[in-house]
C-alpha cells in the first residue's frame, strides 16, 4: 500500500446528522470559527515559509550549477536543510484530503518517500543506472518527463521532490558518522554532468510550483480556505485527524518503527543528508503547533490564536491536560534521540529514546482522538 495513513478518516460527526433534518440549523459556534480561522492563518504562514525557503534553495542551486564549487554545494545543502525544517512542520496538514493530498494534490510529487535512488542516478555498483544516465530512453530531462516518471511502476520509483534533490546534493550515505558525500566533480567532469545539473534545476523549480499551489489554496479569500472555515465541526474533525494520523501511523510507524526494526539507514527519512532527527522534531512540532494554535515563522514572528487546546479545555480540562502532558514528554524524548539517526537505530541509542518516542507518539495520537471525542467528534487516526 501507499501509506497506511492515507486511509480512511471515519469521522462520525453524528450530532450534525441528528440535526441534519431539522428545519432550523443551530447557530454556528463562534469559538469553532475562530479556531478554524487561526488554523488557516497558521497553515498559510507555514506554507508561505515553505515556498520562500524553497525559493532560497532554488537560488542556491542556480549558483551551484553556474559555479559548481565545494562552497556552493555546501550552501545548497544548507538551503535544503532550512527548507526541510519549514516543510516538516506542515505535515500535520495532511491526511484529510486537503489541498496537499486530495486526489489531485501534489504530496506525492513533493515528499515521496522512501525513494529508490538508483531510479534517478548512478549508485555504487551500477554506474549507468537512473534517469540521468539513460540518454536513450530519456533524451531530454524536462519537467513533464519527471512528473510522468514519478511513481511509475513502483511506489519507490520516485523522480521528484525534496528527497530527489537531497540525493542529488548528498549522494548515497556510506559514512557511519555523517551524511553522504557526493563529490562536487559529479557536476564538473563526470558522466552526464549536464543532465544531472538540468535534473537538479528542473526538479527544484517543479517543487516550488507544487508548493505554491498548495499555499495559494490557503490564501485569504481562496475558495478552499473559505469553505474550510465555514465547515464547522467537520473541519475541526479534519484538524484533529491530521495531527492524530501524523503522530501515530506516519511518524511513529512508517518513519521510526520500520527504521528501528531494520536498523537500516535506507529506512530513515532523510537517509542521504542524515537529517532524519530534524524531520522527526519538525513533525512533532507540527502536531504541537496545530494543537496549541501557534506557529513561529522563519523570521521569528508568531502566528497565534484560538486553538484546539482552548476548545478541549472548555469542554473537558482533564483531557486537555492529558494531551499537553504527553506533548511535553514526547518533546523531551524526541529531542533526546542521538544524532545521526542512522547510528542511533544501530544500537546507538542506549537510553532507548527512539522506542520512548514511538510509544509516546502513539499515546499522543490516542489522547488526541480522545480529546476530540470530548467535543463530540469521533476521529479515526488508526491504521485501518
Amino acid at each position: 500500500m501507499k501509506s497506511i495513513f492515507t486511509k480512511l478518516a471515519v469521522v462520525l460527526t453524528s450530532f450534525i446528522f441528528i440535526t441534519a433534518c431539522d428545519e432550523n440549523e443551530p447557530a454556528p459556534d463562534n469559538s469553532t470559527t475562530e479556531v478554524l480561522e487561526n488554523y488557516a492563518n497558521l497553515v498559510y504562514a507555514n506554507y508561505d515559509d515553505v515556498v520562500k525557503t524553497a525559493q532560497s534553495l532554488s537560488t542556491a542551486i542556480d549558483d551551484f550549477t553556474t559555479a559548481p564549487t565545494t562552497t556552493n554545494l555546501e550552501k545548497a545543502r544548507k538551503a535544503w536543510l532550512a527548507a526541510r525544517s519549514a516543510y516538516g512542520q506542515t505535515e500535520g496538514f495532511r491526511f484529510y484530503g486537503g489541498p496537499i493530498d486530495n486526489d489531485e494534490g501534489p504530496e506525492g510529487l513533493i515528499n515521496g518517500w522512501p525513494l529508490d535512488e538508483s531510479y534517478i542516478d548512478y549508485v555504487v555498483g551500477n554506474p549507468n543506472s537512473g534517469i540521468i544516465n539513460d540518454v536513450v530512453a530519456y533524451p531530454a530531462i524536462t519537467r513533464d518527463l519527471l512528473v510522468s516518471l514519478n511513481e511509475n511502476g513502483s511506489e519507490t520509483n520516485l523522480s521528484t521532490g525534496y528527497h530527489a534533490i537531497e540525493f542529488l546534493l548528498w549522494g548515497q550515505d556510506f559514512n557511519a558518522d555523517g551524511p553522504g558525500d557526493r563529490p562536487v566533480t559529479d557536476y564538473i567532469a563526470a558522466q552526464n554532468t549536464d543532465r544531472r545539473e538540468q535534473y537538479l534545476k528542473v526538479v527544484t523549480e517543479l517543487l516550488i510550483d507544487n508548493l505554491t499551489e498548495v499555499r495559494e489554496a490557503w490564501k485569504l479569500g481562496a475558495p478552499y480556505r473559505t469553505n474550510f472555515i465555514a465547515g464547522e465541526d467537520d473541519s475541526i474533525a479534519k484538524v484533529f485527524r491530521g495531527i492524530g494520523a501524523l503522530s501515530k501511523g506516519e511518524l511513529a510507524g512508517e518513519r521510526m518503527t520500520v527504521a528501528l526494526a531494520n536498523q537500516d539507514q535506507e529506512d530513515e527519512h532523510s537517509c542521504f543528508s542524515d537529517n532524519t532527527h530534524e524531520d522527526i522534531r519538525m513533525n512533532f512540532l507540527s502536531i504541537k503547533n496545530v494543537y496549541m494554535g501557534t506557529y513561529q515563522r522563519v523570521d521569528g514572528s508568531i502566528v497565534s490564536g484560538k486553538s484546539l487546546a482552548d476548545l478541549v479545555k472548555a469542554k473537558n480540562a482533564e483531557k486537555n491536560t492529558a494531551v499537553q502532558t504527553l506533548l511535553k514528554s514526547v518533546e523531551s524524548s524526541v529531542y533526546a534521540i542521538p544524532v545521526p539517526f542512522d547510528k542511533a537505530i544501530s544500537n546507538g541509542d542506549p537510553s532507548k529514546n527512539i522506542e520512548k518516542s514511538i510509544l509516546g507518539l502513539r499515546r499522543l495520537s490516542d489522547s488526541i482522538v480522545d480529546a476530540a471525542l470530548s467535543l463530540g467528534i469521533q476521529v479515526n487516526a488508526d491504521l485501518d
Partner: protein
Amino acid sequence: MNKQSYIIILFTSIIGLFSCEEPKDQTPVDTQEELTGGLATSFDFGENAFGHAVSGLSYEDEDKFVIGNSFFRSNWTVAPASASARDGLGPLFNGLSCGSCHNLDGRAEPPKSPSESLNGLLFRISTSGFSVNGGPKPDQIYGDQLQDKAIPTVKPEVKVSVRYEEVIGRYTDGTAYNLRKPIYVFSGWGYGEPEANFMFSPRIGMQVFGLGLLENISETDILLNTDENDENRDGISGKANYVWDAINKRKSLGKFGWKANQPSLKQQTTAAFNGDIGITTSVFPVHELSESQGFLNEIPNGGEPEISDKNIDNVVFYLQTLAVPARRNHTDDNVLRGKALFTKLNCSGCHRPSFTTATNSIKQLNSQKIFPYTDLLLHDMGDALADGRPDFLATGNEWRTSPLWGIGLIKTVNKHTTLLHDGRARNIEEAILWHGGESQNSTESFKKLSSTDRNQLIKFVESL
C-alpha cells in the same frame, strides 16, 4: 509520505438521508453484503483502496504491518549495498519489489504493444513430464520461470514481446464486439535454446488484499463445492488442486495463484521472492539456476537467506491483514438487477458469492461472513483461454476461479481495467466473453441478453 487518497465516511449520512426522504420502492438489499470482508472491510475508494489494514490492530501488530509494507513496496538493490536490509536483488528477476507487479497492492497491466517491456507479467515454462514433487517439469536451462530482467553485467533469460490479434464477435441482438488475443514472441535467449516444444503460461500480478480471509476459509468448506464429475449436471465441475507444500513437506490443497498451485500465503510469498525478485528465504534458500547459469552463483548475495524469517512473517502478516474494500452502489436498482442476472446466468456457480471464515487467524479475520465471489476451485475455461501447461492437477484448460471483490476499483488504483490471467480482457465485458468451457453456457446466455441487461450485469460486477 505519499499522495493521499482520502475519504470521510459519514455512516450516519445514509441514515440521515433515508430519514428525510420517502422510502423508495426497490428490490430488497442484502444488508450484510456491503461489508465485503466482514470486520476486515475498508471504506476508502480512492487510489489507496487496496492498501488499508484491518482495523483494531494492536501496537505490536501495527509494527508488523508497517514493516511488512516496507518490504512489500520498497525496491531491492544489488548486493552488496551499504548495510542494507534490502540487498540481494537477482541476479535474475522479473521485478524489483513485490510492488513492481502488485503496485499499490493492486493488479498489473500487460504490455499494450510489442515494444513495451514486461511490467508485472511473467511466464512459467516447463516441458512434458513431472518434477520430483509432481509439479511441472522444469526446462533444463530456464527452470520453471523465465526472468526477463537481470542485474548489471548479467544477461536476462529472454526478451518477450506481446502483440494482439483482434477477434470479432456478435451479440444475439446484432451488436458487434472486439476481443484481443495475445501472441507472444520469445527472443534473445540468454543461455541457449530452451527444450523444443516447451510449454509456457503467462501470469499477471493480481491484487493482494483479503488474502488472510481467503486463507482462513476451511478446507472442508472449499471441498464442499467440488463436483469433479459434474454429478449435479449443471455443466460445472469444480476441482481441487493438490500441490507440493514445501513448508510441511507433503501435498496440500492449493488455494492461491492462477492455477491454485500454492497452498499457503507464506509459500506463495517466499516462492515469489525467490522466483520473481531473486531473493532467497529459509523456505526457498537457493536461486533456481541451471548448470549453464551456475556461474551466477559466484555473484555476491545479500545474505543467507537474503530476507530474514522475521521479515517474511511481517510481509505475510501485511498481506493477511490488508482489508477488502466495501461494496459501492450495492443498493442501486441497476446493480440489484445485475445481481439477479448474475445468479440467473449461473455466474455464481463458480464465482460463489459468500463464505464464512474459520477460526484459525487473528480475531478480525475469524468467523467473518465474506463476499469474495470465488469457490477457489479449478474449472475448465475452454480452449481459447487455455495455456496448455498442466500445473499439478490443473490441466492446461483449467484455472482457479478469480475472486471478484474489489474488481471495480482496479481502475482507480491501477489506472487500467485489464483482466484474466494474461490481462487480455480490456474490461469486464471482454473478460465475460472470453469465458468458455464450463462457463460456456453462462457466456452464451450473456450474449443473448439485451444491452440494458448486459450493462446491468456489468454494473453489478463493477460494484463488487
